[in-house]
């Protein structure tokens, strides 16, 4: 039996600022786009601020109304990155098997560390304690025999949670949860599951497997095993580095060749790709476009950028320019795919320009949009061009 720990930092961005500035500890603190201008939205709220009903994604003016004494700070990515690095250093002192999942969470496989450092529970307690005392960052810890259950465990209680899931309590903790709480089940899948009358993870676990596979294919099988607490994926310390590319593709409901419509689909795909890219804290240097036409003839072309990007706009513009250059406009398209590769850690700072797009502004806008989507779901905020497209016809 493996021992996997999942640690999730609580209100990470806000916690970093509080850790950095002792005067802000224990006070409501909000990381927000542009606090001076009163516009902008809340990216992260400290737990003290959440007591006032302030949530990620609400506008700054509303947050000020809810809690006039709140401290507002602008986001500082280099600060978050440096804390993230320090946290990983602490984790790596217990095991080399540390898999960062995003800037503020990671898995550890401590199966082989027990003789050196004690039981998984002891290691988990020590980690939580050290991250709190040495760095001042609160976290929630989940311990379980696999990655899926460990992550589900750390989700149980925030902040400062500590949850162990094992064979004895797995059904008790996991099964009453609604399916949308299950890691790996997105909005669409959750809706489809509910249509089938499956509302909780327990109901999913007791479904006949063939009904799930006939509806969801391979994913159905994956859902089934996860719901039953089975996951044998290894903790891979190089997962992020080996994630050589991030991509999304879509088979269209009907073949299209209207350039505007193509652009709309590419924008949607670029946004999904960009979201995952940003979540992982990366930027990418290469954009690849895949097109399959009505005769199943496919074309894959890549373009390498002058400098790495994490912006949806740049990914979209690049994919679009490949499409314009490489694809005959009269051919009807059946499938479109956008992916990015040549990944690297996202750099800090913005090179200012004399003329041209203001990268800093775009990046802040993107951050705000991501926060809204994190909080309210992917449909909460959509680009007007995409909206125009779906209502047309």
């Amino acid at each position, binding site marked *: 039996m493996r021992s996997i720990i999942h640690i999730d930092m609580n209100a990470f961005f806000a916690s970093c600022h509080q850790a950095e500035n002792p005067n802000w500890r224990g006070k409501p603190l909000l990381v927000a786009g542009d606090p001076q201008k009163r516009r902008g939205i809340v990216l992260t709220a400290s737990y003290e601020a959440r007591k006032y009903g302030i949530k990620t994604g609400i506008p700054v003016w509303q947050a000020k109304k809810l809690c006039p004494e709140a401290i507002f700070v602008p986001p500082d990515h280099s600060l978050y990155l440096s804390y993230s690095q320090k946290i990983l250093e602490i984790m790596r002192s217990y095991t080399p098997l540390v898999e960062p999942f995003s800037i503020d969470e990671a898995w550890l496989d401590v199966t082989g560390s027990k003789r050196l450092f004690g039981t998984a529970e002891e290691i988990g307690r020590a980690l939580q304690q050290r991250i709190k005392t040495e760095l001042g960052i609160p976290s929630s810890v989940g311990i379980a025999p696999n990655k899926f259950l460990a992550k589900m465990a750390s989700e149980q209680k925030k902040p400062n949670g500590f949850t162990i899931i094992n064979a004895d309590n797995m059904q008790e903790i996991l099964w009453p949860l609604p399916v949308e709480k299950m890691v790996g089940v997105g909005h669409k899948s959750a809706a489809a599951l509910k249509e089938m009358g499956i509302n909780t993870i327990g109901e999913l676990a007791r479904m006949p497997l063939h009904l799930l596979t006939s509806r969801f294919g391979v994913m159905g099988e994956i859902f089934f095993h996860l719901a039953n607490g089975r996951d044998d994926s290894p903790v891979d310390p190089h997962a992020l580095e080996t994630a050589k590319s991030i991509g999304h593709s879509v088979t269209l409901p009907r073949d299209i060749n209207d350039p505007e419509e193509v652009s709309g689909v590419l924008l949607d795909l670029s946004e999904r790709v960009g979201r995952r890219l940003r979540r992982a804290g990366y930027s990418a240097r290469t954009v690849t476009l895949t097109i399959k036409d009505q005769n199943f003839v496919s074309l894959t072309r890549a373009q390498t950028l*002058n400098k790495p990007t994490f912006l949806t706009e740049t990914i979209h513009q690049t994919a679009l320019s490949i499409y314009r250059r490489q694809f005959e406009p009269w051919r009807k398209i059946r499938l479109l795919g956008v992916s990015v590769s040549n990944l690297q850690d996202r750099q800090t700072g913005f090179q*200012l320009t004399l003329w041209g797009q203001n990268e800093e502004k775009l990046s802040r806008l993107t951050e705000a949009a991501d926060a809204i989507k994190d909080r309210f779901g992917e449909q909460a905020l959509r680009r007007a061009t995409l909206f125009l497209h779906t209502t047309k016809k």
Partner: protein
Amino acid sequence: MQLTLPQKTLAQQLQIVTRALPLRSTVSAVEGVLFSSDGQTLSLTATNLEMGIRTQINVNSQKKGQVVLPGKIMEIVRRLPGDSVSISVNPENFLTTILSGQAEFQVYGLNAADYPELPAFLPEQAKLSFSVKTADLRRALRQTLFAVSTDESKPAFTGVLFTLQDNSLRLVASDTFRLAATYCQLEEMSTAGEFLVPAKSLQEVLRILTDDETIVQAAVIGNQLFLQYEAINFSTRLLDENFPNVERVIPQEFCGEATLETENFLHTIERAALLSAEDNNIVHLSIGSGSMVVRASSKLGKIQESIPLELEGEGVEIALNARFLLDMLRITEGHQCFLQITGPNKPCILKDSLDTDYLYLVLPIKL
């Protein structure tokens, strides 16, 4: 065509024209060099359809004719064993025999009729014209070419803006992150005007020009810039793009100015660049009275170094791309350079003490 000429002369001229050869072309004749003799002069032509180079060599009255020989002809001539080289072309099949010492080459030539016509140099149709010393033009190109953009999606910034005014030529290049502007004193000049020249073509001009007092004659005809220099005729297509207003972005007022020893500054930034983060090569400069502290850090570690300076006015904390600084410091000729400061997160200007008309503006990295 039949002619004999010194091997060295031909090799030299071929080395110049083949700079215009494309790596590959859709027209196979374009991948070769056009040899054309009127009996008195042999002219050699190469073009990548964007720029073209033609040079002329005097040959004593010999059989005239034309042929296109593959680009490899440069290598062939360079390695010939004899002091002189004889070239004869069979006009039926363009088979070309090249004799030198005991070596005999037979090269399959192509029909010169398939060779594209280069834009004609018709001085009477020139919109603009000027002449300048080669050494002066070379200096100006060296001071600006490094600042152009290689990003084809911003075509205007892949060129150097030439502005003729008041008997001087101003060259401006920018990749939008920094801007280099310099001047050349002109020998002669027509009316005022401006045009945008592809940097790629100018790179070749820089390689061809010698560093002396020879005069280059230049003219803009149609959408082409022509340069005539000794026996060399150079032409390049101009960029049909709008270059944004340069004056508007150059600050006129500064809050501080630091004077530094060029070599000292250069070596410090070179050291800091070793540990600056890969992508935008960030170096932090803390400029105070008497000294500047340079800091950089990357995955590998950190560096901090302090260098002396003289400061007038206010200092600044600023982060810059080390490569941008190095590009300019490496070509700075004066012992000193001046760093003009306009404030944090605002542009700064670097100047060479030996050529204070030369301006190099760098935008910082906002953290």
